[in-house]
């Protein structure tokens, strides 16, 4: 199976790799939301951290780490690019199908895009919880 040029580009030059501190460091920081989705036994785990301007609700910065195949790494890298500069509610509009389209993911790799969407939702949900904001009511991501 050949990877698309965009997947290869993100894989070879992943954007926004890293974090704003260990899970412990950022636990009590209210401007940071952390999402960790996937499972090692399934072969992919994504960690997304977002840094939000609490006054405007805008995502100032985002960092990711990913254990997974090239498509999983590319999906999470792309997700960080897309959410930076958006408000948390705007970021929630990103759908896994947008990622599939942008990266030309084949059907066997769709779960990578679902995981990326899940990581955005999880990070935002963590941020909202820390700040006592109403949790978003969204249909659970489709099971995969």
């Amino acid at each position, binding site marked *: 199976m050949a990877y698309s040029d965009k997947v290869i580009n993100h894989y070879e030059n992943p954007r926004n790799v890293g974090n704003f501190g260990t899970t412990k460091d950022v636990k009590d920081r209210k401007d940071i939301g952390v999402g960790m*989705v996937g499972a090692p036994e399934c072969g992919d785990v994504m960690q997304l951290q977002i840094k939000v301007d609490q006054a405007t609700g805008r995502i100032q910065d985002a960092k990711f780490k990913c254990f997974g195949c090239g498509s999983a790494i590319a999906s999470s890298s792309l997700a960080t690019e897309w959410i930076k500069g958006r408000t948390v509610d705007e970021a929630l509009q990103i759908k896994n199908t947008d990622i599939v389209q942008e990266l030309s993911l084949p059907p066997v790799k769709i779960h990578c895009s679902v*995981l990326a969407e899940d990581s955005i939702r999880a990070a935002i949900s963590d941020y909202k919880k820390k700040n006592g904001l109403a949790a978003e009511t969204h249909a659970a991501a489709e099971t995969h």
Partner: protein
Amino acid sequence: MLKLPIYMDHAATTPCDPRVVEAMLPYFTEKFGNAGSRNHRFGWEAEDGMEQAREQCAKLLGADSKEIVFTSGSTEGNNLAIKGAAEMYEKKPAGQTGRGHIITAQHEHKAALDPVKRLMKQGFDATFIQPGQDGIITAEMVKAAMRDDTILVSIMWANNELGTINEVREIGRLCHEKGVIFHTDATQWVGKMPVDVSKDNIDLLTWSGHKMYGPKGVGGLYVRRRNPRVRLVSQLDGGGQERGFRSGTHNITGIVGLGKACEICFNEMDADGARLVKLRKRLESSLQKNLEVSQVNGHADKRLPHIANISFGFVEGEGLMMAIKDIACSSGSACTSASLEPSYVLKALGVGDELAHSSLRLSMGRWTTDEQVDFAIEKITKAVNKLRELSPLWDMHKEGIDINTIQWAAH
């Protein structure tokens, strides 16, 4: 200059030895006859080529040439041996436990497992032995699985993913004591390691041309003729070629190539093996030295010279292969499969799912060089380090968090 990409997937298939190709060529154009044509020179020439190949194969196995049945490869060989023996030796009338009991192992190749599973649907019973953590099936394990109604034991000689070696000679001895037919899928073994079907107590042995520098689409099944004389129900009906075991016009070019490949392996196996063991050990030890939390899967020494299987913790195998695209190899990760299940072979050994996802199989061959191995060591080390920088699991490991204690969201 190193020519890229380099090939380290010889357990998947090998290139044809040029000497094999040379031996085959006349049989495409000049000696193209049908070995079944008994009345003219074209047929005789083809038959001569085929019988010479049969001798070459028999010599490699320590068998009589009359005991060699040519097939299209190991999938066909395993199907013929397992289904053919089960149908021949079934309990008639069927007992309470069905038409008979078959013993095999959990980490066999699908080409052995699936024929057994089909037989189970048709009224046979089967036991799938779990290998030890070292990947090895011992005679003791087979003995423990034996029942009064056991008719067939099918245990591979060396595992295709791990390279680990099962106790074939001892298992064969046990089977002969009990009067049970013993089949071994020796696809990864033949041509790399010595075979003596008598001393090794084998009744049926499957092997394939393309794993030993011969052509694809041809292989053989050894069928014992004496002590005991093994009979099989044929699975392909037709012209009655191969003494009725396998109908179909002989693939003469392939058979001639298989014979030549066997002859070359007979002569060069010892030297090739000694060289490959050194290369493999260097590959394994260098990678383990360079990269912490990496482990060799399967027994360290009871394994084929040329197959290494290594897990690199906290790095996903398919992602890793993408980073070492100049090295052609395999991964136990099944990220491309719809199921997301990692290698069932590694799982059978009790290797954790995350380490199974993190495994690479590197298999070397006749033309693998020191330079290529050095290149692989350097590339893999760099790639694993790069991917660990990206891996949240690596961070957790460094923070001293055991990832097995985390409640992961199922997905």
